[in-house]
């Protein structure tokens, strides 16, 4: 059950979280700038060493070390640097290298597409079916709130496979291609707002240009530089990308889909307050626990809850915020979902398997909050209008021309 806070509690809850935010905002400055610049530096060294090791390796061990180093660089670039920079976490500084309007990460999803689908749709409408495509309803079904469709039979296979090519899957999934190309009977009923075909064509063109450039660099140019050893470099580069893809897949799936996270309807969130918005972000997100390395390599999405509350604060600060946010949640009895990464992933896998099949019996259990909007029949205004509508609209057309002449003119 979702918690049922009173309007006053919701406002107090909001005030406490706003104060937490202000306490961090007051600290943001040089330390954050140095942090992200260090990350960029580390990523550069990891990339150079990875590419050199792959290029010059003569044995599987050094090649594997090269792949590990290069994939770590890719992970750092997309998770801790790209994702967070594109959220505007470091815009305060003004350095164009870490500015959200300038940065385009190495993942094939274009920055423009990502910022629209992720920063706006996902972060504003977190876990709202029909608004936030990250909840998976575009192709997948993990709860009763999505109507079963034959395409869901594929999800136990399609989902892990998409992990291997996650960057492509994400880029194309956000465009909701299934709604344009799947036959109607195979299209999931739930989808977010669709773009026009012209806009879609433009997005696909930009995606194709970026993908081609990246592919030429990673899978043609670098391998060719190695001459006869090209296949080894190609295999190394493909492996590094696949590892980054699988890791991103695991981290993202842990964010909002584990058992215990709630979904929401558009009606539920239509006129929410900031306090209600905070509660929804928390109920729709899951953290996972682990070492400092795990936090950094996940881009601090291990603190998904804090990220969703304050997506524009420098992510490494979420480590400091986490226990404080948790304490506020405990005070107001708002469930704070956290656990180890693998058990969280296991619950996602179980949901993907369970909901691949249609419901055996119609025992739909709605997780939505009980205080739903006032029903129309109870609404005084609606009631009076409905009664009025039942009356035949008796058109009383008197001699209007005569009446017009009687109109008092100021």
């Amino acid at each position: 059950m979702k918690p049922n806070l009173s309007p006053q509690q919701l406002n107090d809850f909001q005030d406490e979280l706003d104060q937490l935010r202000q306490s961090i905002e007051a600290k943001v400055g040089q330390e954050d700038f140095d942090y992200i610049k260090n990350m960029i530096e580390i990523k550069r060294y990891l990339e150079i060493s990875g590419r050199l090791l792959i290029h010059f390796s003569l044995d599987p061990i050094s090649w594997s070390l090269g792949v590990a180093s290069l994939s770590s660089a890719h992970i750092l670039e997309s998770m801790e640097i790209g994702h967070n920079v594109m959220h505007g976490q470091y815009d305060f500084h003004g350095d164009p290298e870490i500015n959200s309007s300038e940065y385009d990460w190495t993942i094939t999803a274009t920055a423009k597409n990502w910022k629209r689908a992720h920063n706006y749709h996902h972060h504003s409408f977190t876990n709202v079916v029909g608004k936030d495509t990250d909840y998976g309803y575009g192709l997948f079904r993990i709860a009763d709130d999505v109507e079963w469709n034959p395409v869901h039979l594929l999800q136990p296979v399609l989902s892990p496979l998409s992990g291997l090519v996650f960057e492509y899957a994400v880029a194309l999934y956000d465009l909701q291609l299934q709604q344009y190309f799947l036959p109607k009977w195979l299209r999931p009923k739930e989808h977010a707002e669709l773009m026009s075909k012209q806009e879609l064509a433009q997005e696909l063109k930009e995606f194709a240009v970026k993908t081609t450039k990246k592919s030429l660099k990673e899978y043609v140019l670098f391998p060719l530089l190695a001459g006869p050893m090209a296949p080894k470099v190609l295999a190394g580069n493909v492996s590094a990308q696949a590892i980054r893809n699988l890791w991103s897949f695991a981290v993202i799936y842990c964010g909002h889909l584990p058992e215990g996270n709630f979904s929401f309807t558009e009606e539920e969130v239509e006129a929410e307050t900031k306090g209600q918005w905070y509660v929804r972000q928390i109920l729709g997100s899951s953290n996972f626990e682990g070492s400092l390395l795990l936090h950094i390599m996940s881009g601090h999405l291990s603190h998904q809850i804090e990220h969703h509350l304050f997506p524009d604060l420098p992510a490494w600060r979420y480590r400091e915020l986490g226990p404080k946010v948790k304490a506020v949640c405990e005070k107001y009895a708002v469930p704070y979902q956290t656990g180890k990464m693998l058990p969280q992933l296991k619950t996602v896998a179980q949901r993907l398997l369970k909901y691949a099949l249609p419901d055996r019996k119609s025992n739909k259990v709605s997780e939505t909050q009980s205080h739903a909007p006032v029903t129309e029949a109870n609404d005084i205004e609606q009631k009076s209008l409905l009664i009025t509508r039942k009356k035949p609209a008796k058109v009383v057309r008197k001699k209007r021309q005569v009446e017009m002449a009687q109109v008092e003119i100021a």
Partner: protein
Amino acid sequence: MEMHTPLLEKTLAQSISPHITARLIDQTLETHNTKSYFFESAQPLSEFKAGSHVNIEFDSAGKSIKRTYTLSSSPKLRDVFSITVKRIEGGLASNWLFNHLELGDTILVSQPQGQFVLPRPIPGRLLMLSAGSGITPLMSMLRYLTRTNNHSEITFLHYAQSDSDLIFGDELKQLAARHANLSLHFVVERETTDDTLLTGRISRENLSQLVPRLQDHEIYLCGPRPFMSATIKILDDLEFNPSHLHQENFTADSAALIGSVETPKYSALLSFSNSKLSTQSTPASTILEQAEAIGLSPSHGCRMGICRTCLCQKQSGTTVNILTGEESSEGSEYILPCISVAKTNTVISL
């Protein structure tokens, strides 16, 4: 506030001319001098936010009359909607609606628009503050909020002259009984036997007592100009953050507008360049009224500076905004002729 280029403003203004035909399906006498008119239209209004207004147009004695009224119904309903109109003594439109509009009659309605609307997310602590018929946009907001899953703490504070002037009184009381988050207060000027009502006028003490943590509220204010001015002064004295105050200038008739500010005695030549006509300007009439008086038919809507349909270019001369008393520059710029008077010799592109 959102800024538009003058050209864009003109385009926006033109796009809201009335074009939907709406049929009157019900009317309710809210008080002795205020009626709600319920309309039905085959083409629903476009999506709008609570607090928006529409331009309506109808024929009176062979003359086309346009006015702007706030939608008092919730934006949840778009093919059935209502406006609530207070009859103004001497007011052409309100009297015509009151006396002559009958069930089944049709009028033309524009698409809704306006800036006096609720933001997203909805403020958690909301003070809706109104007087007289200024209650209409706030009623639309409240009807909307009480039909959603909104959990704001709402204080609805309404001022009226007497208990017989309380618009939506019964509906508001029922809403307050059903929604624990709604705190409702009516304050009337004249003595009353109804002990649920408070008496008096808006005051600093009144506001501080009825609205705990006033400074933490987002305030939506609408009413006649003297009420608005008094409230703003109190809020200034209380050092209320002006960025949390949202207001709609609400005056029903241009005659009332002119009378509401002290207008010095200007005498200037007012020329209309496109039609090559001119007239001796007087501060008792707006530029729009003077243009009409010499036979021009400029496009217009609300005649109270809200809808911006009349927006036109002033080529030269100083004009005065009768709502704010603000003077224009002497050079070329866009003005609203329905709320402007000419202070010096002025040339308008009409």
